[in-house]
Each structure stands twice: as structure tokens, then as C-alpha cells.
């Protein structure tokens, strides 16, 4: 079964068209990197998959069912907010608020809730981190915690919206590896949006590139080509591969650079091939 199916999908924000006539399918168990210039609609697409934004045209299906709010099959890691680092609340309490948080009544967990919480924290190795207040955590630790939260309730699809923002390269790699491990070990389909391809290189099975109202889904070799990317950027795109780096150039300007590609290159190709099998 496909995890996500977009059929002739059109999305608009206010009156601004974000996606036009997009048809594609993400297979169950895939790790898909979602890329594209700022404002290309990565977050908007996630919100639509979550059922928070009605399609202007076409349909979105999640595991065969029309997208709707409150779908328990989807785990969501929203783009991080600036308010978190000031909260003097323990990570555990923070995540606990999401367990059946939509029900009325007192926020008391009960044994089943505590078990779910511990299980999710253990999956990402964050049980000790979670005992500390959010204000005393590093960005990477907070991100790990949010991962745990997204895993509560055994989702089959994870939507991770820019989880690498404001992390240093080493932490970025850890977060990507964590997402990949969850994808492989638990069979969870992962949509992972990021700013640069290099951050995901080697970990992802396929890339979903958004831009200019269009979308392209395929392997890196299939998508990162001038013929595919030029319509997405609305300008002539050149792709230069050199020494394990991929440079995406528009005219003379580099629109996306890959400073960290080199060190992960060999490692990357191995995973890449697995993705197709």
C-alpha cells in the first residue's frame, strides 16, 4: 500500500497557489527527503497531509484514506518554535501533554500513558534527557525529545518539518540517522523536510523536490538533474557533480550548496542502493 498518495493535488494558501496538479505516491516504509526553496510549500504540504488544509483541487490519501485531522497514523514534528528554550518544564511533562491531549479533563497520565511515554523515550534514547527542564537542554536534545513525542501511539507515517534547523552539522547527522533507524527498524514511512540535500544525502531513499507549484519525486539521480529542477526553480538550472559534491547552480549563483557531502559520501551510496531494493 502507498503511505501517501497525491492525485492531481492543488493547494492554495489564502489566494496564493502553492501546488498545482501534483500526482505522486510515497510507498510505505520509504524515507523521503522533502526539499525545495523557501516558500515552496513543504510545511503547507505537511499541513495538508495532516488534514489541516483542504485541497483546492484533487485528493490526498494517507494509507488509502482521505486526509483528515486527528489521524492517529501520523506522527508530526512541527517546525521548532522559539518559545521552547524558555520553558522551565521538564521534557517529560512537556511530551506527556500530548498523550490523549485532545480529551477534556485533567491532564493525568495513568499507567498506560506512562508506559507509552517511556516506550517512546526509550526508542530515541531520551529517557534521561526528558528528566531535565526544556530550558536546560541543547537544541539537539530538544529535537530528540520531539522525536519521541512524534512516535507516541505507534504512527505509521512521520512528518518531520525541518528538524535540522539551528543544529550543528554533527547533531544534524545524528537526527538524520535517528530518523533513518526508525524508518528501517519500525517500518515507519518518513517524510523529512530539510534545507539542503547534503543534510540528507545517503540516508534517504527518494527525494521530493518542491518548487514553483510543481513537485518531483524520485531518486537523487532521477530528480537532481537540470531537466527536472529547472521548472521547479523557474530558471535554467545546472547540476555539477564534483568530488562527491552536488552543486545546484542557477546562472552563476549557487542556489544550494553541499558543504558536508564529502565525508558521508561512501557511506551514503551504500544506503542509497539499499533504498531501491
Amino acid at each position, binding site marked *: 500500500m502507498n503511505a501517501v498518495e497525491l492525485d492531481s493535488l492543488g493547494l492554495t494558501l489564502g489566494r496564493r497557489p502553492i501546488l498545482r496538479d501534483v500526482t505522486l505516491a510515497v510507498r510505505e516504509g520509504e524515507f523521503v527527503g522533502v526539499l525545495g526553496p523557501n516558500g515552496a510549500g513543504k510545511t503547507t504540504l505537511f499541513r495538508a497531509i*495532516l*488534514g*489541516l488544509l483542504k485541497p483546492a483541487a484533487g485528493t490526498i490519501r494517507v494509507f488509502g484514506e482521505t486526509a483528515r*485531522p*486527528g489521524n492517529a497514523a*501520523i506522527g*508530526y514534528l*512541527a*517546525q521548532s518554535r522559539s*518559545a521552547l528554550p524558555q*520553558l*522551565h*518544564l*521538564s521534557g517529560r*511533562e*512537556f511530551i506527556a*501533554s*500530548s498523550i*490523549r*491531549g*485532545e*480529551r*477534556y*479533563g*485533567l*491532564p493525568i497520565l495513568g499507567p498506560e500513558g506512562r508506559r507509552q511515554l517511556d516506550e517512546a523515550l526509550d526508542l530515541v534514547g531520551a529517557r534521561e534527557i526528558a528528566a*531535565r*527542564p526544556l530550558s536546560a537542554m541543547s537544541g539537539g536534545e530538544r529535537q530528540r525529545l520531539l522525536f519521541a*513525542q512524534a512516535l507516541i501511539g505507534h504512527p505509521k507515517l512521520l512528518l518531520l518539518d525541518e528538524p535540522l534547523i539551528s543544529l550543528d552539522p554533527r547533531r544534524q547527522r545524528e537526527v538524520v540517522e535517528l530518523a533513518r533507524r526508525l524508518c528501517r527498524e519500525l517500518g515507519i514511512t518518513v517524510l523529512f523536510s530539510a534545507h539542503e540535500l547534503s543534510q540528507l544525502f545517503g540516508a534517504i531513499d527518494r527525494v521530493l523536490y518542491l518548487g514553483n507549484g510543481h513537485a518531483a519525486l524520485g531518486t537523487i539521480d532521477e530528480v537532481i538533474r537540470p531537466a527536472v529542477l529547472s521548472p521547479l526553480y523557474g530558471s535554467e538550472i545546472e547540476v555539477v557533480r564534483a568530488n562527491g559534491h552536488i552543486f545546484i547552480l542557477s546562472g552563476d549563483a549557487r542556489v544550494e550548496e553541499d558543504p558536508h557531502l564529502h565525508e558521508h559520501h561512501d557511506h551514503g551510496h551504500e544506503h542509497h542502493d539499499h533504498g531501491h531494493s
Partner: protein
Amino acid sequence: MGILDLDFMRNAFAASGIVAVVAGIVGVFLVLRGQTFAGHALSHVGFAGATAAGLIGLSPLGGMIAFTVLAGIGMGALGERLSGRDVAVGIVLALSLGFGLLFLHYYTSFATQASALLFGNVLAVSTGTLLTLAVLGVVALVALAAISRPLLFATLQPELAEARGVSQRTTGILFMAIVAITVSASVQIVGVLLVFTLMVGPAAAAERLTTRLGPGVLLAALIALAEAWLGVIIAFYTDWPVSFCITALSALAYFAAVIATRQA
């Protein structure tokens, strides 16, 4: 003669105790949501409501509740659009005080009314008012208990809560209505201008002392209760205004918590 032998002192303890516990608990959520300024503004709107009601011969407390609840619902409905609009909220706050002044201008017992509304007069709480405060307190706490779970979720993780079908708008409106009721009750004890002292001070101190919500709520209620009762006792023996004593204790508790928890 003991302090509790006096009727008005017994009423003062009961009234300040009820209000302190409710304000302390509601305040925890107010601080967590970063809406303390909205709470402050609500009390000023209440001032206009109380004076307007008094002017046309209705109960000032009734007028205060009506105005604050309506304003609270409006603020809740505006929700996110209100964040970062401190100037607009501040201007409405000042306008409300101005209207209150205008209404008082035509009011016969100007000075005592104004002072009681602005700075509170817990020693003059009648048994009837005490009953009203008890009802308001129960309503606020029951309503808060009913929505606390989605409220907490929506406060801490708005995007995720929305994805799970929690309406920011509904929880925001209900919460601000609860805040409005609590503000109206608090005004009876410490007055319009000093509502912060019971609603924000204890909650902010408690928030620094624990990283957990349950103990934080309990601690905030206890700190507020201690401040209110100690304030009444100190006022009784020194003849200082009760509201001054409570504000002094509230500031003391908050800054003590800040100093005690400062990272070495």
C-alpha cells in the same frame, strides 16, 4: 480578643483564601501561556464595568464580571492575532480606566468606591459577597479542570494540538473566560491595579521552583494562600493596608524564588 473573633476578619480570611487558591491555580496557566498582560488588561476593563454598573444602580461586582467575561471572550477569539499587540491592548486598558473614571465622576460616593475598586478592600467583604466569591471560585476551578488537558496541550504544542483536532480558538476563549472570572474575584481582594500580585506572582514563583505541572499548581495555590492570609494578619497588627501587605509578600516570594533557583 482574637483575630478570628471579629466577623469581618473571618470574612476577610475566607474571601482572601478562596480567591488566592483560585488565582494561584489559574495563574499557572496564565504564566505558561504568556498571557499575563492580557490578565492585567482584563482587570482594567472590569473597572469600567463595575463603575458603569454602579452608576446605573446595579451591582458593581456583576458589572465587573459581565465586562471582563465579554472582554475575555473577545481576547480569546482574537487569539494569536493579539500576540505582539501590547500597544493596542495597553491603549484599551488605559481607555477602560478612563471610562471608569468618567463613570465614577457621576457617582456619589466617589472616593471610597474608587479606592476599593482600584486597591481592594478585603476587610469590607460582606457575607453575601463571600458567597458570590465561593461560587465564582468553584465555577472557575471546575471549568479549568474540565479543559485543562487540551488547554495544556494547545499551550505547549499548538501545531501538534491542532493536528490532533484541538481547537486553539475554543480552548483560548474558554480559558480567557475563566481568567475573567478569576480576575473579577481577585479585584474584590486586591483591587484592579494589583491583580498581578495574586494571579501572576505566586504562579511565576512556583514555576521557577519545580519543573512539573502538578506540583507547580499545588505550590502556586499554597504560595498565594500564604501571601493572602499572612497579608491579612500583618495588616491587622500593623494597620497597613491589606493589599500592600499582600503585594509585598508576593514580590518577596517571587524574588526569593528567582534568587534561590539562579544557576550558580
